[in-house]
């Protein structure tokens, strides 16, 4: 199953938007944090986990999803949020801690919640699993359409909650898909040093469900694997597991010196940057013209710029609003 022309345009557009968004955020992040890097300062304080390089996973999966489908993401959620259709203005404003943000500044970049498109996050490793499985249960019980998709990192697969949720989804045959973004690192610890086997898709055997590993960050292969898994889920045939080999082009978070990376690793990764690769392929396959791609890129840049402007122009929340929205 290959993505249609329109889907490829959509995928490319979202990859570019995500990359552009993060490049812009990265630039702004350092405002107020020089000459000495200080996490607390500047218009965007706190930890910042970028997803540069991992965009293919988000778009390859979300190409199959509707707003009604439920996605849970992690501490590294921007690419997924964008591909799931989270309101970019409100998302940017949230990252700036503004009153117009998705949650009025209460959440921040690790806690993006957009009920309109059923998107949520947790900053605790693997803890998006339960809620996505629960959404799948809810749909099954209500006989309503919709699948639950949890994105996790390869490091999360060694967390107990991951295992429990996989077993629950499989036992109850829920419309659920777990997508593992294997960027080979959990902060500074490599997959090889933390995981007993090299292919987490093999762990599907522990739950009697299909498991697929997608190589080399390929958006087309991701699209295909996700398409099958999501179709299976929609057809009531139960959950699936997908692991994607992807690349973290940046540090774990901004400010990470990455001293733990073997020499040359980063350079090799940059050569595999998925965005120019997809661009070249679309051109080569005649799926898009140079002009179309440039238009997509310009539109994406404009979209991001507008969102950032919205965020910058928005007011800070009232400090005392910290005390509201604790209960519904």
């Amino acid at each position, binding site marked *: 199953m290959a993505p249609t022309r329109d889907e490829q345009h959509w995928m490319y557009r979202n990859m570019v938007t995500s990359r552009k968004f993060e490049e812009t955020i990265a630039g702004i992040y350092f405002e107020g944090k020089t000459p000495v890097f200080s996490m607390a300062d500047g218009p965007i304080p706190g930890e910042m986990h970028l997803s540069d390089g991992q965009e293919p996973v988000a778009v390859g999966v979300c190409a199959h999803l509707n707003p009604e489908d*439920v996605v*849970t993401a992690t501490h590294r959620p921007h690419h997924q949020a964008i591909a799931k259709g989270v309101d970019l203005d409100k998302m940017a404003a949230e990252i700036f801690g503004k009153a117009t*943000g*998705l*949650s*009025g*500044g*209460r*959440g921040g970049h690790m*806690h993006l*919640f*957009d*009920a309109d498109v*059923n998107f*949520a*996050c*947790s900053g*605790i490793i693997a*803890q998006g*699993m*339960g*809620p*996505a*499985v*629960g*959404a*799948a*249960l*809810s*749909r099954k*019980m*209500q006989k309503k359409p919709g699948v*639950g998709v949890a994105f996790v990192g390869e490091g999360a697969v060694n967390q*107990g*909650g991951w295992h*429990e*949720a996989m*077993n*629950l989804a499989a*036992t109850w045959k829920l419309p659920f898909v777990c997508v593992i973004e294997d960027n080979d690192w959990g902060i500074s610890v490599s997959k090889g040093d933390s995981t007993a086997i090299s292919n987490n898709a093999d762990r599907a055997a522990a739950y009697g469900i299909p498991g697929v590993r997608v190589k080399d960050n390929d958006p087309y292969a991701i699209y295909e694997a996700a398409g099958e898994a999501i179709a299976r889920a929609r057809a009531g045939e139960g959950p699936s597991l997908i692991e994607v080999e992807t690349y973290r082009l940046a540090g774990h978070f901004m400010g990470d010196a990455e001293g733990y990376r073997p020499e040359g690793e980063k350079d090799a990764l940059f050569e595999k940057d998925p965005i120019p690769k997809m661009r070249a392929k679309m051109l080569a396959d005649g799926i898009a013209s140079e002009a179309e791609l440039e238009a997509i890129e310009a539109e994406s840049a404009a979209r991001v710029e507008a969102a950032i402007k919205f965020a910058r122009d928005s007011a800070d929340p009232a400090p005392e609003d910290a005390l*509201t*929205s*604790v*209960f*519904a």
Partner: protein
Amino acid sequence: MNVPNERKLTIARAMAEAVQQEMQIDPSVFVMGEDIGALGGVYGNTRGLLEEFGSERIRDTPISETAFIGAAVGAAQDGMRPVVELMFVDFFGVCFDAIYNLMAKNIYFSGGNVKVPMVLMTSTGGGYSDGGQHSQCLYGTFAHLPGMKVVCPSNAYDAKGLMTAAMRDDSPVVYMYHKSLQGMGWLATEPGATVHTPEESYTLEIGKAKVAREGSDVTIVSVGLGVHHALKAAEQLEADGVNAEVIDLVSLVPLDRDTIRASVAKTGRLIVVDEDYMSYGVSGEVIASVTEHDISVLKAAPKRVAYPDVPIPYARVMEQFCLPNPDKIVAAFKDMKAA
């Protein structure tokens, strides 16, 4: 209390009835947990529900508390109203992230864009030699962390009304029921917990304490089983001509500080009774809530009768040595007078 057409229920039965009635009118309510189906809950609070509602809505789970409590959060955010059971509160350590970082915080993190209408019910308490991993109360542990309401009924009337209120609440409610009040045949039940309980559905406002007994000489504040200890102590004190007021907190979050303060303002004396560990818990909070407000009303230093800061021992003589009881409350009052 004698009521015409009295209809005494155990707390277990009252809880099950509240859930049953709500499930009849609200299809989004369902129950998940270990052994809540065919077994009807280890503490009887889901008995009969499987037969009426079937295994889709009365859903036995694997021993995977993180997964099913996390799933309840996801289902709650998606329009369902799950009632989940953590069989013993002592087990919170395997799944607390799903409770305090997801269930309790997602409303806030979303700025109110999602609701998390779910009930987490869990059994508390010891006194029957179940050892240090099956006898704790942990009231303070849950009440300390923001984002969840925490209730704890002392009798069947409250149990039913609180459960219905909890299921209708759009925020998460932790519903802590004490095993010794539950009315299971195999666990001695405090008779005072089994009281008249109307058949029709009703709610109790979450966050309101009750004056369980009026008095003028000392205020004894407690929750759950401790309320019954307090009432018994009050009777003993009455024989000595002392008139004790007993406050049943009913809800730990929100905590009804006004009711506590008003009572102490009247009596001038405060004893807090708590089966949870003494330090950094309920007993300290109640005392601080009174004293930070106004120390001038106090005629004596407040006292606590709480579980000492030790794991719960198995041997009966040791466990009973540690537990609060009416005699200890009476002794605390006498100390207070003597001081």
